[in-house]
């Protein structure tokens, strides 16, 4: 059965390096006349300094402003007028840019991405404008949304040394205080060919693509060799209690969060299985008991917040009526203790295998998804073959490991209990 699913979707790819250190990955798929071009840079908010947070995300905005050959405001016009779509996103670990075009426009896409890397224009007008835009992004996405500041509140309590302690969107005060020279220096340091991977996926001729890649990216100068800093957190040995006041809510939320190891580790995958066991679907342990049978919560969920250096396992629930966060926590703890002391049933184990098989097939169902996964497995996991083999890794996890990993990471003294509460009065 394992072979059946795994072999049903082998993602074929070719990879090589340019002389300047840029890594290139090509994936052919001619089933639709579309080509995805993307670049992932190994820079995220964890590469910022504590007094200049928000820089990595800021660049995601800034690098659409223009280049020496693409005038300010023209980037999107060029994409649209050539039938394409594009976007970018930033996490704590990396920044990702992509264009999707009809297959006739691969050369254009490569030119645009090389322009962004080779000579972006970083000037005062762009910085000032995007600074205003980002403040409104923060208000729209976080400050004006009920429960919008959960992740930020969790992170600042979960990490003491690691830059994961601040949010990707960062501090507006830091952006206000920064100089143009600081933005230019950040660009020079991190936006280099040797800190990036270029992916071309879809309907194209390999020889032609390679020729254009060499033509547009080959002459870009190599940047400094970066050494990623390591930040080691002390283990959490006593429950961290914290609270956060949200003016946009009426119902308090219970949040319990455990610090987990790098997403590259086997233990992180085991924790993914545990998360699914606890809260995926109506038959999952927590949903069925707390929401369906006991009617104590409007919602209960567990999410694995997987990252390059450390992850977080975040359990959250909204108590209903007169039920309290403490009651929810008691129910959650009972289920965790069961995982720590008993083996999960054979049937539940098989269910997890089926769930992850399904997820694996869907993960690479779109060309855009394949392009991003190729970049991620190469750049963050350091093993591009995982795009085809990760399912085998998941299948090799045993019931005993599930029990042992739960025992290792999910203890009450290793977690944050965050009371996310409404304000007593409206703000002034």
């Amino acid at each position, binding site marked *: 059965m394992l072979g059946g699913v795994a072999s*049903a979707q082998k993602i074929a790819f070719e990879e090589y390096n340019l002389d300047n250190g840029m890594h290139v990955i090509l994936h052919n798929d001619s089933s639709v006349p579309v080509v995805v071009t993307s670049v992932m840079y190994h820079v995220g908010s964890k590469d910022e300094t504590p007094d200049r947070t928000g820089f990595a995300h800021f660049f995601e905005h800034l690098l659409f402003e223009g280049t020496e*050959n693409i005038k300010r405001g023209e980037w999107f016009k060029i994409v649209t*007028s050539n039938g394409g779509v594009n976007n970018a996103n930033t996490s704590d670990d990396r920044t990702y840019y992509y264009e999707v075009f009809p297959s006739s426009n691969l050369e254009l896409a490569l*030119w645009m991405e090389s322009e962004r890397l080779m000579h972006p224009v970083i000037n005062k007008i762009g910085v000032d404008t995007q600074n205003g835009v980002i403040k409104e992004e923060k*208000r729209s996405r976080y400050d004006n949304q*009920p429960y919008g500041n959960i992740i930020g509140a969790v992170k600042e309590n979960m990490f003491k040394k690691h830059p994961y302690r601040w949010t990707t969107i960062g501090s507006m005060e830091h952006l206000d205080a920064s100089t143009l020279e600081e933005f230019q220096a950040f660009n020079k340091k991190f936006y280099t060919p040797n800190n990036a991977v270029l992916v071309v996926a879809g309907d194209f001729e390999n020889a032609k693509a390679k020729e254009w890649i060499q033509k547009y990216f080959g002459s870009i100068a190599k940047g400094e060799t970066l050494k990623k800093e390591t930040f080691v957190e002390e283990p959490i040995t006593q429950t961290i209690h914290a609270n956060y006041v949200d003016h946009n809510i*009426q119902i308090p939320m219970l949040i319990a969060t455990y610090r987990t190891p790098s997403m590259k580790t086997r233990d992180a995958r085991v924790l993914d299985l545990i998360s699914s066991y606890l809260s995926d679907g109506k*038959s999952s342990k927590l949903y069925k008991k707390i929401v369906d049978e006991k009617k104590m919560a409007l919602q209960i969920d567990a999410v694995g917040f997987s990252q390059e250096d450390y992850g977080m396992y975040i359990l959250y629930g909204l108590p209903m009526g007169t039920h309290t966060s403490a009651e929810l926590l008691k129910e959650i703890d009972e289920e965790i203790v069961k995982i720590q002391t008993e083996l999960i049933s054979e049937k539940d184990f098989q269910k997890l295998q089926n769930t992850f098989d*399904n997820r694996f*097939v869907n993960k690479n169902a779109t060309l855009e998804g394949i392009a991003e996964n190729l970049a991620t497995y190469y750049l963050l996991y350091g093993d591009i073959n995982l795009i085809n083999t990760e399912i085998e890794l998941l299948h090799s996890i045993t019931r005993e490991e599930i029990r042992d990993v739960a025992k290792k990471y999910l203890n009450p003294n290793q977690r944050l209990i965050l009371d996310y509460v409404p304000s007593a009065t409206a703000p002034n």
Partner: protein
Amino acid sequence: MHPQARPQPKPGVSPVVNIKKPQTFVLDNGLKVMIVENHKLPRVTFNLALDNEPFFEGTIKGVDELCNNMIGNGSIKIAKDAFNEEIDFLGANINFGSKGAYASSLSKYSGRILELLAHGALHPNFTQEEFEKEKAKLFEGLKAEEKSVPAIAHRVVEALAFGKNHPSGEYMSEETLKNVTLADIKKNYETYFVPENAYLVIIGDVKYNEVKPIVENLFGPWKKRSTPKLTYPAPQNVAFTQINFVDVPNAVQSEISLVNTLNLKMSDKDFFPAVMATYILGGDYTSYLNMNLREKHGWTYGASATIGSGKYVTKLKAASAIRSAVTDSAVVEFIKEIKKIRTEKVSVELLNNVKAGYIGRFVMQVQKPQAIARYALNIETENLPTDFYENYIKTINAVTPDDVMRAANKYFLLDNTRIIIAGKGSEVIPGLEKLKIPMFYFDIYGNPIEKPVL
């Protein structure tokens, strides 16, 4: 390398577009089945869609949402826990609702998943216990959203634009939810969950010949019934442009929407000109609104305009979440940009860019299995000519700057627009008053009130 040595590359030869059709058949009860075989991945999706008219729920508003949340928790033949357990065990997903159901599964389990979908959708088990539980959750959900500025803005926009006596304008409240009974749920299901306007779209790793008899077997017994044909008073646009203000003291931005209602069918001659006018006004990063409010002023994360289309009355909405301090200035700029598209002809260059974008996205979508199915469904549900998509590129290319301006004047009713603002009154009302636009005040449910004391 000198910048001049890197000119922008010219596009290659555009790919040829082939529009495929799904294989289809119709059951005696009216259910139309569309199948798109695609064997690239070992998975299948099933989408049962009921294309019903919108209907008014009145004093029991919430009955349809409650019905939606109760369908598919087991069936009269399979108990809830066993039902949910089996779907999850197969690693599949099925979402049930009052307007259909959607499932995705590995192809090896697709037969059983389709069976479970049919069971859950056609033989629901509505119990008092589940009713009480889902109702309690909806009450709690209302409470959880009570202070959400985007949620308040959304509710008031719909209520004012369409009127509370219209299916598109009414909203659920604690009061209407309290009125709903289990009998109402059953009646709602019996009345509207019928095969008359139903479509079952199957995409993926299945064979037409194998799945057809299974569908006939599972959905053939679904009893033929018609939905009630009802009419509602046509929503009226306001006689003059006005600000409708809602005070939300916890707001950190102002949600601004400029709204008027309209009718626009996909088959109308004006359809593409109207859609393009909307796109130019607020469709993407380079739109008039976004370039002004975001890129020129930095007042917002983004501004957009959307126009509804289809068989029923719908609306034009230009909207943005704006920094509180510049709410009044933003209103001026909104008006300016809508005026611009009504009075200044778009340049041929800009229009050509927009057309190229539409055509490019079409070219990229058209051969994907989901698009093949969606286009076929649109032709059926929107009564489009069968060659609508064959002519798509040609139709788009034929739109002129005059067409765009005419459509903007016809649908963007600047002189009959409601400017609905949900924001922090104490910070923004004084500025808005200086605009000398008539201003009316509403509570968070869209009821008219006196100007709040700040």
